């Protein structure tokens, strides 16, 4: 088993199955429909990008899968179990736009937090945290505290923490949203590599079209009021996503396709009358 291996051999059950899910916030009268009639199946090992404008419910959908919120109606299964059971069994790792590190802990202890909460013995979790710090390129910073790190480094700690328990499913809510463009692309390259090597399924929420296309096997396009899935586009750009892909015509073609899906009509290109 390599250091990236997940808990199990890929199971035939899908990683996530969302059926007829609806989510309403607030009470009658002032109720807001955040999600309407959402169906989505994510295969084990599949990388999905959820993309759409603000308020389309993409983060809400991810929070429902994580069981941080409950759907108003419909069912969500994670590896064939209820979302709640999957959360209690720690079947997923999660990362948000904010790193959410504990400022009083070192990098290593932040990475080891989920292991510590689940009673993994000290030596084992220290070794795992060390391994992950190297994986995200923070070996030298293992004993630093979060306020001594840049935003990009903090986010890498958050991703290492999400990987700590070798989850078969990674949930990521705009984890690179607050980073500058260069750091962002480097993080995307690293995530593509990590996701490929670990074989984990990924639900990646973003509002960046190139980011969605570069990373995902499938881009799920959502639209707001009420939040729903309007289109799902395959991104057949291969298992591995090397840096050079960003310059290729196939990549631009998929970017254009996603952009058109987001706008609901072909986008007129500059220079085309």
């Amino acid at each position, binding site marked *: 088993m390599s250091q990236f291996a997940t808990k199990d051999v890929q199971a035939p059950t899908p990683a996530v199955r969302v059926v007829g899910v609806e989510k309403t916030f607030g009470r009658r009268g002032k109720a807001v429909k955040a999600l309407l009639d959402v169906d989505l199946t994510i295969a084990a090992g599949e990388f999905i990008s959820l993309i759409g404008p603000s308020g389309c419910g993409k983060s809400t959908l991810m929070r429902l899968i*994580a069981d*941080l919120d409950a759907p108003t109606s419909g069912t969500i299964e994670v590896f064939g179990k209820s979302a709640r059971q999957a*959360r*209690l069994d*720690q079947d*997923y790792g*999660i990362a*948000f736009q*904010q790193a*959410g590190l*504990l400022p*009083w*802990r070192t990098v290593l202890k932040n990475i080891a*937090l*989920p292991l*510590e*909460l*689940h009673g993994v013995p000290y030596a084992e979790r220290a070794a795992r945290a060390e391994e992950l710090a190297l994986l995200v390129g923070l070996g030298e910073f293992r004993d630093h505290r979060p306020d001594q790190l840049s935003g990009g480094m903090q986010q890498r700690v958050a991703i290492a923490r999400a990987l700590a328990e070798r989850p078969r499913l990674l949930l990521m809510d705009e984890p690179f949203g607050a980073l500058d463009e260069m750091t962002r692309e480097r993080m995307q390259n690293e995530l593509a590599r990590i996701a490929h090597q670990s074989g984990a399924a990924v639900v990646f929420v973003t509002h960046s079209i190139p980011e969605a296309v570069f990373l995902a096997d499938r881009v799920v396009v959502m639209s707001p009021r009420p939040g729903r899935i309007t289109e799902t586009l395959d991104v057949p750009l291969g298992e591995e996503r090397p840096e050079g892909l960003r310059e290729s015509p196939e990549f631009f073609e998929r970017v254009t396709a996603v952009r058109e899906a987001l706008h609901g009509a072909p986008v007129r290109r500059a220079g085309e009358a």
Partner: protein
Amino acid sequence: MAGVGTAIGRILAPIVVGALLLGVWLLLVDVVEVSPTLIPSPWTIGSEFVANLGIIAEDAVTTGTNALLGLLIGSVVAILLAALAARLAPVDGMLAPIVAALMVVPIVALTPIFNTMFGASAQTGRILIAAIAAFVPVFINMLRGLRQAQPVQRDLFAAYAARGGQTFTRLTLPAALPHLLTGVRIAGSLAVIAAVVAEYFGGPADGVGTAIATYAKSGRIPLAWAYVGAAIAIGIVLFLVSILLERIVRRYRTET
């Protein structure tokens, strides 16, 4: 080298200031010859202090104990109530007006009443005054501290299926501790002030405050000043205790 320079400066600067103040004082007393009832000479105060060291120490221990017990009781009650208020919104709503009232009540106003309530020979009233003075800053800061954990951190702990106790010891409490310590440090000096001032308004015949009031009234100004020195010493001791507490807590925090 700059580090060494600032370290020397940190020790030297207050010594220089102290020496300057002493110089001005001596200038006023010996050269300008201000009346000794107005400004007694530092040597007179010093010799009064030494001559009465035993009784001054005894009184200082009495007042210091009152202040320390008050700080302890006030802090514990404040921490418990803040925890309750952070957990239950209605409790917060019920406590808010009481805390506001305690914040504005001049604590000395309560002293004569407490002296009658608990009897003039008991220290209880004085301890209670110190406890009330200590309660407010600890409560307010602890409550603020308990609300420091960010929503994203709470979400993470929920996602990890952390138990309530784990979330408290690893997130809520460490996030609250710096605020609690700030509260305790403020409360420490308030407790000393309250304990000394409470003695001005009757009660048992011991304590630094009682002595200051008595000797100031009877014209023994140098001895009264010597007792003021003792009151300052109590304040410094409590301040040092709070710094020690901070060191311990900081170490605990980095180990959570």
